[in-house]
């Protein structure tokens, strides 16, 4: 425990608070003692022995040339260190200046809020300490009570720190104003011991995390980015600022750098910060009244009688937000009697968009744990046919339990891959695909997502999502009198998992996007960086934790126009073409010398095929993308034809050669 407290004192930021740091100094020395032969006044020396690389960097950073004299005053300090420092210091004048800036900046950032920041720090630096301890002594880390997750976070943070130290020289400048020279000289006069402390503190800042400072810097950078032309420091590109911002966010919020990248592409810097902050707090607890068994009003009264503070959700007929409760909300008699279900507000949305009607046939492709399924059943008033499916056998239990508890009687539950559906059961009026996703919208529920997910997860997810959506569209009957609706939703925010998947469906099936009928939400992207989507994707809706105070979500509503599958039509045409070309081949093989007439016939055939293609083009010309698609396909097929032509020509030549040879042979035979 002593060690920990020592470390905290070490990490505190440098300049303005020296007295504090100085006061704790004895502790520091005590902690260091075991490894150390040297006298008290030189705590600096311990550090270099412990972590070589970072300290060197930190020295570089921290020592302006003016300090040299004072350092000489350290009677007890080791010569080696002095040498290193002086080497570093002498090396580059420009660098020194930059370093000065950095020091000033640090002091500037802290001077206003010192007290607060330090108080916070006492609480927050624990992570930092422990991680440092971890470096020093592995045993200690193991014995600690941290969870795996915490360890991971810490490791990530340490990495970030080290990287940060590397980049510091470049990046300090942009953030700091240039006007600082006087302060530093004044401060230096204060005394050797304090100076030593200061250095140490600085070094530890680079190793340990100074969260408040990082946060302040995030804010500064964002402010700069928002008014880039006037606030930027000359000669520093936006990219440098962005890199700094990414790193700081990684450090402060504990995300993987890939994830920060993803979100910085979706949001602008300021909005991204709001988003990250929103992920640190929990969304309000919401429940849905089960209209099969009760009414929202009655339920609210019953729960209020049990000491639950709640309020109806304005945009929903059945939702209640729970602010405060004295009883376990998942174990009241009302809950067990199936009068309500705990369900996040965002998962109301896809069902509202689906708008199932009584006596329809509805499929919920990825149903567990049944919140949406039971909502669909309630909207259908327990009539018609509801098929709920889920791949995961473990999750099926909760699905069945919820279906029975809420008194759903029109439901069949199947446990298989949703992609098998059109072959097992088809002809549905409506299908809901709440696809499995990376879950970037529910980070507040499961913080592990911050580091556990990678780009590879997104790639695998999008693949299954595309397959599921196409199968879902296939399972719908376009001629349905009331429906023909497909709703696609995810609780993730990446464009790859959302707009791109729907766009893919638009290109491969005869569907159009219709309005979700939900009044709020952010419009979907029609263009995102290098990708361009169909303009109607603006009708899809996105929901963000920081703007709507619900889990991040995406909802798209599709209407099926016909049961034909464009891609299969194309395949059939390609087959025709192949048949034609294969005929050519066989002809060319069989007839050693193709006559001119035959060649003309073949050309005619080819023309017919290509004219068919043009016809199909005009049909699908409604959608530009499809057109382009077809064009590319046609080009391909044309190429194929050309290849075939070439091949056949070659064969002709070959056969001619053979013919010539034969003739020669014949002649020779005759001669004989």
């Amino acid at each position, binding site marked *: 425990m002593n060690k920990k407290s020592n470390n905290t004192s070490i990490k505190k930021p440098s300049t303005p608070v020296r007295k504090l740091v100085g006061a704790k100094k004895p502790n520091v020395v005590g902690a260091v003692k075991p490894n150390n032969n040297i006298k008290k006044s030189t705590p600096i020396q311990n550090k270099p022995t412990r972590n070589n690389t970072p300290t060197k960097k930190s020295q570089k950073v921290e020592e302006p040339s003016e300090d040299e004299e004072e350092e000489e005053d350290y009677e007890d300090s080791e010569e080696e260190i002095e040498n290193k420092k002086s080497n570093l210091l002498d090396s580059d004048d420009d660098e020194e200046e930059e370093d000065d800036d950095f020091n000033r900046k640090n002091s500037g950032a802290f001077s206003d809020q010192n007290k607060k920041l330090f108080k916070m720090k006492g609480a927050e630096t624990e992570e930092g300490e422990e991680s440092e301890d971890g470096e020093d002594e592995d045993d200690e880390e193991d014995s600690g009570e941290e969870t795996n997750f915490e360890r991971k976070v810490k490791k990530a943070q340490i990495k970030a720190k080290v990287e940060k130290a590397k980049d510091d020289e470049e990046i300090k400048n942009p953030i700091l104003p240039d006007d600082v020279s006087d302060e530093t000289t004044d401060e230096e006069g204060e005394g050797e011991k304090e100076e030593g402390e200061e250095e140490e503190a600085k070094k530890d800042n680079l190793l340990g995390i100074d969260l408040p400072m990082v946060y302040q810097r995030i804010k500064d950078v964002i402010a700069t980015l928002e008014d880039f032309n006037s606030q930027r420091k000359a000669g520093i590109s936006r990219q440098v600022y962005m890199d700094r911002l990414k790193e700081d966010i990684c450090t402060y919020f504990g995300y993987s750098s890939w994830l920060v990248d993803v979100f910085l592409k979706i949001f602008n810097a300021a909005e991204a910060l709001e988003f990250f902050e929103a992920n640190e707090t929990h969304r309000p607890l919401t429940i849905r009244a089960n209209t099969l068994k009760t009414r929202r009003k009655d339920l609210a009264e019953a729960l209020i009688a049990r000491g639950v503070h709640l309020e109806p959700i304005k945009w929903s007929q059945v939702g209640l937000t729970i602010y405060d409760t004295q009883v376990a909300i998942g174990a009241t008699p009302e809950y067990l009697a199936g009068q309500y279900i705990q369900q996040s507000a965002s998962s109301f949305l896809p069902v509202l968009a689906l708008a199932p009607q009584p006596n329809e046939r509805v499929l919920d492709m990825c149903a567990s744990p049944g919140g949406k399924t039971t909502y669909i059943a309630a909207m259908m008033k327990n009539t018609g*046919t509801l098929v709920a499916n889920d791949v995961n056998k473990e999750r099926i239990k909760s699905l069945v339990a919820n279906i*029975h508890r809420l008194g759903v009687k*029109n439901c069949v539950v*199947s446990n298989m891959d949703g992609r098998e559906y059109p072959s097992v059961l088809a002809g549905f009026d409506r299908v809901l695909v709440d696809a499995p996703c990376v879950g970037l919208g529910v980070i507040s529920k499961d913080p592990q997502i911050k580091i556990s997910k990678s780009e590879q997860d997104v790639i695998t997810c999008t693949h299954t999502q595309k397959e599921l959506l196409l199968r879902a569209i296939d399972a719908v009957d376009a001629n349905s009198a009331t429906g023909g609706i497909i709703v696609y939703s995810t609780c993730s925010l990446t464009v790859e998992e959302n707009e791109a998947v729907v766009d893919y469906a638009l290109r491969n099936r005869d569907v159009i996007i219709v309005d979700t009928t939900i009044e709020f939400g952010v419009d979907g992207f029609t263009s995102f960086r290098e990708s361009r989507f169909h303009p109607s994707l603006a009708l899809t809706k996105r929901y963000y934790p920081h703007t709507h105070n619900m889990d991040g979500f995406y909802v798209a509503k599709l209407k099926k126009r016909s049961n034909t599958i464009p891609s299969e039509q194309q395949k059939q045409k390609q087959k025709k073409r192949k048949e034609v070309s294969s005929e050519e081949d066989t002809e060319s093989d069989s007839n050693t010398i193709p006559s001119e007439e035959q060649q003309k016939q073949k050309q005619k055939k080819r023309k017919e095929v290509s004219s068919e293609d043009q016809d199909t083009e005009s049909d699908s010309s409604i959608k530009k993308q499809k057109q382009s698609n077809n064009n590319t396909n046609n080009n391909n097929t044309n190429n194929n034809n050309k290849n075939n032509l070439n091949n056949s020509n070659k064969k002709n030549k070959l056969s001619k050669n053979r013919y010539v040879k034969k003739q020669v042979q014949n002649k020779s035979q005759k001669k004989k």
Partner: protein
Amino acid sequence: MRPLTEEESKVFFEKLIKFIGKNVTLLIQRKDEPYCFRIQKNKVYYVSEELMKRSQNIPRDSLASLGTCFGRFTKTGKFKLNITCLDYLAQYAKYKVWVKPTSEMSWMYGNNLLKAGLGRITEDTPANQGVVLFTMNDVPIGFGVTAKSTFECRKLDPTALVVYHYGDVGEYLRDEDTLF
């Protein structure tokens, strides 16, 4: 998924009759829509015929549930009613017991009902009769078997058993893993 055999139907309906008496016929001959009982993996489901036909397409191994589960056959051939059929039992129950709010939670943790928790009881309920239990707000919370008749109940002291526990809605939480 298949219809019940004669043997199975006999065992099943005997059990059901204990709770809802002659109303069993109302379950089978419904005016709105034809319903039927089907057995799938030892569990008996009560399901509309249309839904039953649709679910015939689904492979037997992947069919997890259809309609409402009434209970299951044990390996020894006995039938056990599950709490999932409470809706129908409550709808057709002949004899009912109302539980005082103070004893609701005790019942939902799987305990027997004592005289102290007895709010109301249907007139002339015999002993050893299947009953459905309600809260005082008429929300069904389980079913059980009476230990004493209505007449005897009046004289009992507060700690005496009135209804033996058979099933309660708390099982949705307690036995979710084994129930489904």
